[in-house]
Each structure stands twice: as structure tokens, then as C-alpha cells.
């Protein structure tokens, strides 16, 4: 029997600060054992449990795409004990990893369809994985139009700024970046994500919407998607809950009979409608 609680060793290859408030750091991990690397297959939307031994373990969505071979990226918000330890970790250090865990985005459902990706704040990590996956030349023709609406409170709080610039230059993705408050260097859009969605008004025809962000953003964005005629079963979101085991044993992350860790974290709005509002 394989022990699902036993982490595999990873090396911290690179770390970089993402945001001006210094609260978000991306760490890139490489596999220390070749056999672990070969056995690791994931899809965008899945997550891992990262361990800093002595501090503990916490779940993080995978921010890199499966198409970016050899290493895994995680963007970490400094909030508690484990995340603070991960912020202070040095390049070359060893961390533990368990995963990939969870279901991930329904990639095969999206095939042949348009996708509308709506992200807010630092919830953009697994959305970045999804976008990067479909932007890979071998995957690009799997979906039709890719529309991305991404918002942050301030320009400095946007993740993956260099990459956003790259995407802006491409003609095979429509990217709308918005901030709640601009600054003197900001030439882009200013406005809340739900309002920007209304303004951009992408067609719901043949389109799947994937939305990930703070609860308040999701609350106000859903009605706008409804107004655009998106049916519940074509709206997907990824949930977060307090987790420990990540494999549906320890109990705490359930919503009704489903566990966010193993039955999620990705759910359709249709599924969520039928579940208790325990999240």
C-alpha cells in the first residue's frame, strides 16, 4: 500500500515576489527524485499539499501548467504559519509535497468550446495554469476563443505581470485587466470585475465560464453571468476550505456529502446550487 500522507522531497529552485505589498511570493519547485517526477501527472486546477517540516502542511493550487515541464509553481499568500515559512524559504532548500490532489478543471468538457476566464486577486493561480495550458501551441486549437478578465485591487497587486504583458501582445487571447483603483502609471481599465464583465459582455453561446476570486467578487459576478445567459452547468469555480489530509479522510472540508479536497476543488455552479451553503 502506498502511503498517501508521506510527502515527496522537492527542491526550491526559484522564489520571486509577485506583488508590491510583498504578500504574494511564487516558488518554483523541482523534483529531487527522478521517479517522483515521472509519476507526477496533473491537470490545471489540481492542488498539492506543501510541507515545511516542523511547521506543518497546507494546500496550494498549482500555478504552473502541465505543459511547463520539470518544475511546479505555487503562488503563496502570506497568511499563517506554513505560508510564512514558505515566504522565508531559501532557494535550494527542501520542501515536502503531496499530490496532485483534487479533480481539476474539466479540460475535456472545454474542448471545442470558447472559454471565459474570470479571476480576482490572488485566486488567479490555477486560472493561470489553465490559460497557460491552452495557450501552448499543441493545445491552442483544442478550445476556440479564450477571453480573460482579471482584476486586482491595485496595479501592484496583479500577479504574473510579465506574463500578462506577453498575453496582451498575442491575438489568440482576449485579455482584459482591470484594477479597483489605478495609480499614476496605470493606463488600463479601472473598475470592479462584475462591472467589467458586463461591459465586455462575452457571448455565452458555446462558452464555458471559469471563475475564481474572493467570495464578494463571485457573489456579484454570478448574477452578471446569469444575465449573459450562462447556464449553471457551464459555470465552474474552484473552492477553498480549511484542509488537512487532502484525501477525504480528516473530515473538515466537506460541503454536504462532497469533500472539497477530493470531489473538488472545482465545482460547477449547478453542483453548488444543490449543496448546502456550508462554505
Amino acid at each position, binding site marked *: 500500500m502506498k502511503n498517501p500522507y508521506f510527502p515527496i*522531497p522537492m527542491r526550491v529552485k526559484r522564489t520571486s515576489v509577485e506583488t508590491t505589498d510583498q504578500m504574494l511570493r511564487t516558488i518554483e519547485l523541482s523534483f529531487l527524485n527522478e521517479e517522483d517526477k515521472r509519476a507526477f501527472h496533473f491537470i490545471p486546477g489540481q492542488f498539492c499539499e506543501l510541507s515545511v*517540516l516542523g*511547521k506543518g*502542511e497546507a494546500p496550494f493550487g498549482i500555478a504552473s501548467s502541465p505543459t511547463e515541464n520539470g518544475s511546479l509553481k505555487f503562488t503563496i499568500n502570506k497568511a499563517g504559519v506554513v505560508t510564512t515559512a514558505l515566504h522565508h524559504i531559501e532557494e535550494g532548500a527542501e520542501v515536502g509535497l503531496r499530490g496532485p490532489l483534487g479533480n481539476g478543471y474539466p479540460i475535456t468538457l472545454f474542448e471545442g468550446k470558447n472559454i471565459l476566464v474570470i479571476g480576482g486577486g490572488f485566486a488567479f493561480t490555477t486560472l493561470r495554469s489553465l490559460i497557460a495550458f491552452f495557450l501552448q501551441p499543441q493545445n491552442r486549437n483544442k478550445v476556440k476563443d479564450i477571453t480573460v478578465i482579471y482584476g486586482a485591487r491595485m496595479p501592484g497587486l496583479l500577479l504574473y505581470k510579465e506574463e500578462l504583458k506577453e498575453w496582451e501582445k498575442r491575438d489568440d487571447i482576449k485579455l482584459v485587466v482591470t484594477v479597483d483603483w489605478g495609480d499614476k502609471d496605470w493606463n488600463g481599465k479601472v473598475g470592479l470585475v462584475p462591472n467589467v464583465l458586463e461591459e465586455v459582455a462575452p457571448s455565452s453561446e458555446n462558452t464555458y465560464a471559469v471563475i475564481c476570486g474572493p467570495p464578494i467578487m463571485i457573489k456579484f459576478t454570478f448574477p452578471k453571468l446569469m444575465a449573459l445567459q450562462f447556464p449553471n452547468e457551464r459555470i465552474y469555480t474552484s473552492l477553498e*476550505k480549511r484542509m488537512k489530509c487532502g484525501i477525504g479522510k*480528516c*473530515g473538515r472540508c466537506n460541503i*454536504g456529502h462532497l469533500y472539497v479536497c477530493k470531489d473538488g476543488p472545482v465545482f460547477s455552479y449547478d453542483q453548488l446550487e444543490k449543496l448546502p451553503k*456550508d462554505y
Partner: protein
Amino acid sequence: MTLKLDKKDLKAFLETLMEEYDLFAPVKLAEGVSIYKKIDSPDEVDLSTENPQKPAKEVFFPQSETMFRYEKAGKRYQMTSTEGVERERVILGARPCDIQAFSLMDDVFLGKEYKDVYYGNKRKATTIIGLACPHPLSTCFCSSAGGGPFLRKGSDLFLIDLGEMFIVELLTEKGMAFQKNKFFREANTKEISLAKGIEEKASTKADASVPIGGIDRRSDLMMENPFWDRMHEKCIGCGVCTFLCPTCHCFDIVDEAITDKGQRVRNWDSCLFPLYSQETSGHNPRPTGRERTRQRLMHKFNYFPKNFGRVACVGCGRCILYCPVNFDIRQAIKLTSPKEIKKVKDEVDLTRQ
């Protein structure tokens, strides 16, 4: 196959058992505090307590359990898992309710997707010697929960106390391994019929009237019902019902460290504790007793049946016996009838007007 074991041979039997196995049995630590623990001397074993306060789940799922140890060597960590089981084990004297609960734990820990090796290795290495309950307590309702005081399912060997001796039934292949045990002799028809009489008498005592059947469907519509406003009012959230529940399996995982050395440990946790679901951001999806009581009961009677086809309650009655504020799960189950739910709703609506 029906055999017998004279009580005067019990000590010698346990001694030979301990030569081959790690023996786990009920031990009375103090008046009213009986637990299952690893036996060092046969004198510790106490089979007289009606049903030990702490359930036998500890044998497979300890209250606190090391998952692995680690030590830092330069930049690397040396990690050693503690999942292995050194010796074969025997649980002696587990009651039918606790044994029925093992099969529910199996659903969770040995499920299709992920196998919990810590639980699984212990479970696999264990022979279960069940002990019949001749005198179910007034709080016992195993007969309502698909069990019964003489339920043999799950036991490898099954003991029935006849006063001077135990009737010993060998039920499985693991049990048949004891066929040649020198302390076991064949039981005569008189002894067997005596045991039968005790069984018949006991089976009428455990409450079979708690309406558990169909509760998963009944409770489907209860999530937002004012029922929960009423239900949680007296609960103080101490969590004793979850710790003493033979089917509750929630746990927390923490690291314990001294400089470069340490271990990862899992400890029992309870859905009745606010911190259980509290997120780092401060958000708590189950912020009050209302949501937490709902989680405990709905998990047992609605979510668990959805996932595994049966309720996560074996009717052992411990949560009733040891609740400091007399919360009675049987009462809660009875209140899920549509008529009762409406009554509660009307009452709550009235007080809100």
C-alpha cells in the same frame, strides 16, 4: 464451531495469547473510566464493564498517532514513516456496536480512492474477539442501527459470558486458527442453549424503536430548517460525543519539532470545535453551534449514507451517556419526522414574531 473457555483458564489463555500477539482489551483506569489499551499484564483486562467509555476505534485509529519522523541532515531531510505494524494484534472484548463501527471506518479509511495505511495496516494485522452484551444499557439502541447486542458480524471469534465460562464461537478463518487452542473445549448442548437463552433475553433489551430507517431521505430537506436553531441551543461544543463516538473519524495533522528533528502527528479532532473549520483568513464556514451541530448530525445521517449507503451511527449510546448537557441523539432522530419538524418550525416562528 462452538467451544468454551473456563474463566479460571482466562489468565493463562491471555498469557499465551500475548506471547504471539499484541493484546488490546478493556482496562478500567478508574471508576467510570474504561478504555481499550495494549495489555502488559493479563490482570489488567476487565471484561465486566458493560461498555467501556472510550470506543475500541483507538486500536486502529489512536487518539494521537505519529505518521512519520524526520531529521534534517545538511540541506536534506531524512523521513521515516511509522506506518508499519510490528506484531499481529488481537482485540479482546470489543462489543458488537464497536465492531460494527469498524466496518464504517473501513468505508472511510480503506475507500476506493485512497487507502489510509496507518489504519489499514493495523486493521489487517488484527484478530477480533468480540464479546456479547447480555445486559444492554438503557441508552443502547444498536438494534435500531442495524446491529444488536449479539451481532457477530465483524468478529473473528465471539464470546458469550455464562458466568463461570465463556462460550467461544469461531466465525472466520482468522478465528478458526484458534480451533486447536489448548484452553478451548467443546461446549455441551446445555451450555449452548443457556447462551441462546441469554441472547434472546438481551435482544429484547436494546431499543429497536429509534426511527433511523429512511432518515437520510427525511433529512435531505432539513438543511435550512429552524430545527437546527432549536437543536444546538443547549450544546456547549465540548466535543465529548465525537471523541467517544466509535464512528467519528475526523483528525487534525500537526508537526511537532525540536530544532532539526521532529514528527508529524495526527490527533482526533471534532467538528464541534470552532477552530476545526476556521480558515486563516478568519472566515469560518460553520461559525456557530447551529452549523456545527448540523454538521455532526447531518454527517452521520445524511452525508455518510449518500457516500456509503448506511448511517454512521451504531447506537452505542455513548454520546447520550456522557453528554454534560443531556443532548439525546435518539430524541434528535425522532424529531426528524415531518410532523415534529413542522412543530419546531411553528414554535420558532412564534418566538420570532
